[in-house]
C-alpha cells in the first residue's frame, strides 16, 4: 500500500474517532433523519389519494382526511427536522471543538525548532481553513450523505410500486445527472483555478506597485502603472468570463435534465392515464417524486467533492498531531506513569551556572554557532554577554534554557547537569526578557502576571510595573493596568513593550533573570535606572544580560565578549578596558556615538 493511501485511511479513521464520543447523538440524529424522510415521502401519496378521491366523484371525507394527513406529516417532519439539525450540526461543532483542543495542546508540547522551521501562517491555515472543511464534512456533509442515501433507497421503489414501466422511462434522463455533475465540475474546477491564478497575479501586481510607490511617483510613471494594472485586470476578467461560460449553464442544465424527465412523464404518463393503466393521482405522485429525487442526484457530486477536500484537510491536521513532542516532555510523561523513574529527576541545589566546553551547530548549518564556551557564574552574580551581530549571544541563551540541546559539553546549574533536570523544572528557573518583545492582546496586568504563580495579585502587578520603569507610561492610559493591548486596544511604543516584558519577567520571580538585548528601544538613561534598581533590589538573583550596548554591562561581575561563537575576551569591565582589546575598542566607539547623539 502506498503512503498516500495509507494517509487517507488514517485520516478516515481519525474522522470516525472524532465522531465516536458523540455516537449517541448521531444515533438520535439518524433516527430523526429517518422520521423526517419518511414524513417527506408521504405527501405525494396523500395527494394521490386525494386526487383519486376527487376523480371518483369527490368523497369529501377522504379529501379532508388527506388534508389532515398532510398537516400531520408536516408537523412530524418539522419537529424532527429541528432535531436532525441540532444533532448533526451540533455534533460537528463539538467534534471540531475536540479537534481544535487536541491540536492546540499538541502544539504547546512541540519543541522550539518546530516553530522556527514552520511558518505561523501555515499552522494557522490548518487551524482555521482546514478545520472549517472538516466541520462541513462532519456536519452538513454527513447529513446530506445520509439524506441522499435514504432517498435513493426508497423513492425509486415507491415509483416502481406505482408503475414499473413509467419509472424506467422517466428515470432515464436522471442518470445523466451525476455524470453531468462530475464532468462539468471538473471543467469548472480547472477554470476556477485559472481564475485564482489570475487573481493572485492581480494582487501581486497591486502589491508590487504599492511597495514601489515611491519609485513610481519619483519617476512620475503612475499612468503607465494604471494601464498595466488595467490590462492585468482585463486578463482576470477574461478568465472569469471563461468560467462564467460554463458556470452560467450548469444549474439551468441540471434543471433541464429534470424538465426532460417531466416532459417524458407528461407524455407517457398522460397517455397511460388516458389508457387507464394508472390513475391521475399516481401520475401526480410521480411528478412529485421526480422533483424530490433530483436533489440527491445533484448532491452526489457535491458530496464527493466535500469528502475529498475534508480528507485532505484532515491529513494536514494529522501532520501536526504526528509531530514528535519535545523530548524531555516525553520523559516526564513516562515518569508520570511510572513513579519508579522519579528519582531520575533532580532538583538543582543553588543557581550557580557553569558551562564547560559547550559546542552547538544549528541543524543544517555548516558552521558551528558556538565553540567551546566555558565560564563559571556564581549564584547571585551578574553575567554580561556582548559581541557583534551573529556572534552566538542568543544561541547561548537558547541552550541555557534548553530550547536546543548542546552538541557536546556541559551546562551545570546548581551543580546539576541540565540534562538531568526535568524540562518543566528547568524552565521554572528562568525569567526571560526576549530580544523581540512578544506581548499578548490582553490587559497590561494580565501580561505582567503572565507567569506569576498567583494571578490575582493586582497590587503586585503595580509594584512590578513600577520596578520595570512603567510607572510613567501607565499614567498615559486611562485604564492603567487594565488597558487592553494589541489591535483592539492600545499599541505600545517599542520601549513601553520592552518594559512590560521586563515587568512580566520580574513578576515570574524566578531565581535566574535573563535579559536578551531587551532595552534597545529604551534610552540609555532609563535603562541605567532600571538596571541599577534591579541590582539593588535583587542582589540574590542570578542575572544574565545580553546587550550590544556596553554601558548596560559595565556593572556586571563577569563580561564575556563573543565573536564567531567563541569567547574572545572575558573579565570585568575594568579588566577588559585595561586589556585594550575588542571590548575596549567597541566601548570607545559607543562613547563617540553617545556624544554624537547628545548633540555635543
Amino acid at each position, binding site marked *: 500500500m502506498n503512503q498516500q493511501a495509507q494517509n487517507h485511511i488514517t485520516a478516515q479513521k481519525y474522522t470516525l474517532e472524532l465522531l465516536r464520543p458523540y455516537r449517541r447523538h448521531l444515533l438520535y440524529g439518524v433516527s430523526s433523519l429517518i422520521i423526517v424522510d419518511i414524513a417527506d415521502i408521504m405527501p405525494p401519496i396523500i395527494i394521490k389519494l386525494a386526487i383519486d378521491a376527487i376523480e371518483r366523484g369527490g368523497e369529501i371525507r377522504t379529501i379532508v382526511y388527506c388534508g389532515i394527513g398532510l398537516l400531520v406529516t408536516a*408537523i412530524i417532519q418539522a419537529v424532527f427536522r429541528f432535531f436532525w439539525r*441540532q444533532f448533526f450540526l*451540533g455534533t460537528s461543532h463539538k467534534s471540531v471543538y475536540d479537534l481544535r483542543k487536541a491540536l492546540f495542546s499538541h502544539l504547546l508540547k512541540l519543541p*522550539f525548532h518546530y516553530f522556527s522551521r514552520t511558518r505561523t501562517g501555515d499552522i494557522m491555515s490548518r487551524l482555521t481553513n482546514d478545520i472549517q472543511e472538516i466541520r462541513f464534512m462532519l456536519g452538513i456533509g454527513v447529513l446530506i450523505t445520509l439524506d441522499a442515501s435514504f432517498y435513493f433507497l426508497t423513492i425509486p421503489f415507491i415509483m416502481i410500486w406505482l408503475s414499473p414501466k413509467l419509472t424506467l422511462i422517466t428515470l432515464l434522463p436522471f442518470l445523466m445527472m451525476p455524470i453531468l455533475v462530475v464532468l462539468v465540475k471538473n471543467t469548472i474546477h480547472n477554470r476556477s483555478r485559472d481564475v485564482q491564478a489570475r487573481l493572485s497575479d492581480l494582487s501581486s501586481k497591486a502589491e508590487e506597485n504599492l511597495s514601489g510607490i515611491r*519609485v513610481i*511617483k*519619483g*519617476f512620475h510613471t503612475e499612468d503607465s502603472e494604471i494601464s498595466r494594472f488595467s490590462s492585468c485586470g482585463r486578463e482576470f476578467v477574461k478568465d472569469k468570463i471563461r468560467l462564467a461560460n460554463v458556470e452560467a*449553464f450548469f444549474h439551468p442544465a441540471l434543471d433541464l435534465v429534470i424538465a426532460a424527465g417531466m416532459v417524458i412523464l407528461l407524455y407517457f404518463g398522460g397517455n397511460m392515464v388516458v389508457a387507464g393503466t394508472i390513475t391521475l393521482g399516481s401520475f401526480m405522485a410521480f411528478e412529485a417524486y421526480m422533483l424530490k429525487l433530483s436533489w440527491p442526484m445533484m448532491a452526489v457530486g457535491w458530496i464527493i467533492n466535500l469528502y475529498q477536500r475534508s480528507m485532505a484537510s484532515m491529513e494536514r491536521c494529522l501532520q501536526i498531531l504526528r509531530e514528535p513532542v519535545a523530548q524531555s516532555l516525553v520523559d516526564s510523561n513516562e515518569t508520570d506513569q511510572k513513579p519508579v523513574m522519579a528519582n531520575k529527576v533532580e532538583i538543582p541545589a543553588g543557581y550557580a551556572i557553569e558551562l564547560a566546553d559547550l559546542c552547538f551547530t544549528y541543524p543544517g548549518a555548516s558552521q558551528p554557532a558556538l565553540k567551546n564556551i566555558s565560564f563559571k557564574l556564581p549564584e547571585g552574580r551578574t553575567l554580561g554577554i556582548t559581541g557583534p551581530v551573529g556572534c552566538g549571544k542568543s544561541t547561548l541563551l537558547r541552550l541555557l534554557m534548553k530550547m536546543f540541546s548542546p552538541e557536546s559539553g556541559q551546562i551545570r546549574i546548581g551543580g546539576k547537569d541540565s540534562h538531568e533536570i526535568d524540562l518543566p523544572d528547568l524552565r521554572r528557573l528562568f525569567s526571560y526578557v526576549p530580544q523581540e518583545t512578544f506581548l499578548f492582546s490582553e490587559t497590561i496586568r494580565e501580561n505582567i502576571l503572565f507567569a506569576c504563580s498567583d494571578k490575582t495579585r493586582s497590587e503586585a502587578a503595580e509594584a512590578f510595573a513600577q520596578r520595570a520603569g512603567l510607572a510613567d507610561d501607565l499614567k498615559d492610559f486611562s485604564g492603567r493596568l487594565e488597558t487592553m493591548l494589541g489591535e483592539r486596544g492600545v499599541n505600545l511604543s517599542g520601549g513601553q513593550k520592552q518594559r512590560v516584558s521586563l515587568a512580566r519577567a520580574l513578576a515570574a520571580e524566578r531565581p535566574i533573570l535573563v535579559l536578551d538585548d531587551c532595552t534597545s528601544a529604551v534610552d540609555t538613561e532609563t535603562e541605567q535606572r532600571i538596571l541599577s534598581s534591579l541590582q539593588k533590589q535583587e542582589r540574590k538573583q542570578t542575572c544574565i544580560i545580553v546587550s550590544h550596548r556596553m554601558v548596560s554591562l559595565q556593572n556586571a561581575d563577569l563580561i564575556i565578549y563573543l565573536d564567531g561563537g567563541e569567547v574572545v575576551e572575558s573579565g570585568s569591565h575594568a579588566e577588559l578596558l585595561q586589556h585594550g582589546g575588542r571590548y575596549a575598542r567597541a566601548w570607545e566607539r559607543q562613547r563617540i556615538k553617545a556624544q554624537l547623539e547628545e548633540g555635543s
Partner: protein
Amino acid sequence: MEDYFNEDDIKAPMWDTGLVRRMLPYLQNWRPHFLVSVLLVLAGTAVQISLPLLLGRAVDLGIKVQNQKQLLYYVLLYAVGHATFFVILAARNWLLQYTGQQVLHELRTHLFSHIQKLPISFFDRTPVGRLVTRITNDVATMAELFSAALINVSGDICVLIGIGLMMLTLHWKLGLAALLASPMLYYVVWVLKGKMRDTFRLARAKLAMLNASLAENVSGMSVIHVFNQETAREAKFDEMNTSLREAELTSVFYNSFFSPVVTIFSAITLAIVTTYGGWLVSTGEISIGLLITFIAYTQAFFDPVRQISEQISVFQSAMASAERVFGLLDEAPEPDLESGREFKGLNSEIEFRNLNFAYNSDKQILKDLSFTIKKGERIAVVGHTGAGKTTLASLLKRFYDYQGGQILLDGVDLREFSRSSLRRRIGLIQQDVNIFSGTILDNIFLEEGSFDQNKLDRIISELKMESLIDKLPQGITTPIFERGSNISAGQRQLIAFSRALASDPEILILDEATSSVDSETESIIQRSVQQLTSSRTSLIIAHRLSTIRNCSRILVLHNGRLVEQGTHEELLKHKGHYQKLYELQFAEGDRA
C-alpha cells in the same frame, strides 16, 4: 500577521441608500446590459409561471377528455417552455457575470488610479496589505451586490408576486386561501432571521477572536515555553474554545427553526389548497387541471423565501466593503501633478533658504537649513541616523511641501514648478532597489512606450553594462523573477542607476545604501556613481568614504541643522562633528 478579526462585516447594516447611490455611477456604461438582465428576469418569471398552467391544461384538455392530440400539443408546449426557461436562465446568469465583471473591472481600475494619485504621506501611514485587500477583495464583494444579490433577489420577488397574482386571477377564492398563510410566514421568518443573524454574528465574532488568539499563541510560543505557561495557556484557550462551541450551538439552535417553519407553512398551504380545492373540484366550480396547477404553484412558492433569506449576508458584507472602498476614494489626492511651471533645467544654482519641515507637528525634522548647490557641483550630505538627509531628497521631488523657508531653483521657488516636471528632471536613486516584474528592459524604462534604443545604448555605455548584460541568458530582455531573485545585488544597483538615466535627469539625488555590500557590487557602485555624477548637479546622501572623498563639498547635518561644511580634509582638520561621524561610520574598525 493576517487579520482574523473584522468587526465591520459583523456590524454593517443590510442596506445603506447613501452608499448604494454612490455605486450607481459605475453602472452608467452598462445600462443596456442591466436593462436586458431585468428583461430576462421578467421573461424568466413569465415562463416559470406559465409552466404549471400548461401542466393543468394538459390534464384538463388532454388526459381528462382522452384527447391524445391535445395532450401531445401541450406536452410539446411544455417542453418548449422548459427549453426557453433554460435559455433565459443561462443567458441571465451569463449576462450578470459578464456585466458584473466589467463593472468590477472599472471600479477596480478607478480605485487603483485613485490610489496612484494619493500623496506619499498617505502611503507612510497605510500598510500595503490593507490597500491590496481593498483593491482585490472589497471591490469584488461590493460588486456582488449588483450581480448576484440585487438581480437575484428582484427575480425571486418577481416570482413571488407573479405566482400570487396568477393564483388570484385564476380563482380568487382559492388563491386567497393559498396566500392566507404567507403574511404570517413572512413575519415569523423575519423575527427568526433577526435572531439567527444575531447568534450567527456572535459565533463568528467568537471564532475570529479564537483564531486571533491562536495566531498569537503560535507566534508567541517561545515565550509560553520559556515561562512554562503551557497549562495556563491551554486552560485559557479551552475557555475561548468552549465559549465558541456554546455560541455555535446557540446559533445552530435558532438556525434549526428555519427549515421546519418553512416546512410547516408550506404544508399548511398545501393542505388548504388540496382540501378546499378538492371540494371546489367536486362541486364542479374548478377543473382538476386547475387544482393541479395550484398544487404546483404552492410547491414553487416557498423556494424564493429560502433564497431571499440567504442573500441577506451578501448585502451586509457588500455594504461593509463599499464603506471601506469609498473611504479610500474619499482620501484627498495630490494636487494636479501638471499644474505649475515646467521645470526645464538648472542654469545656475539650487538654494535652500531657512528651510523648515516636519512630517507631523510633534517633531521638527529640518530646522532653518540654508545652503547652496551650484550647477554641476557634486555635494555629499552626511549625518547620523535621523539627521534629516533623506527628507531633503523627498522635498526636492515635492513628495512633501515644506512649511517654512524656501528651496529656490535659479531663484524661483520650487513650489511654482509642476510636480510632474520636477519628478522627471530630478532623478532619485534610492537605497533599496524596487524591482518590478517584467524584463530588465521594463525595469529600466518604467514608463510604457518610453523605450528608446539610442538612449539604451548610451546608458549601457555610460554605465559600462555590456559585460553584465552578456552574462544574462536573454540579455537585456531577461525576465526578472519575483523580487529580483535571479539577479545579483550589483545588477539590481545597475538597474536603479540606468532607470534614473532613462529619464535624462538634470539633477541627481543618490541615497546610498547603509548596509555593507559584496566587493563586486561595491566596485560597480563606485564606478557608476563616479560616472553618473561627473556631468550632473548631484546631491549624494553618502554612507561610503569613497563617495565622500570624491565630492567637492560635504554638508554635515545634525538634528535637522547644518553644523559643518567643507571638504573631507578640511572637516577632519576641524575636529568637530564630522570627525566623530567619520570615526563611527566611515573608518574601518570593529563593528559591534
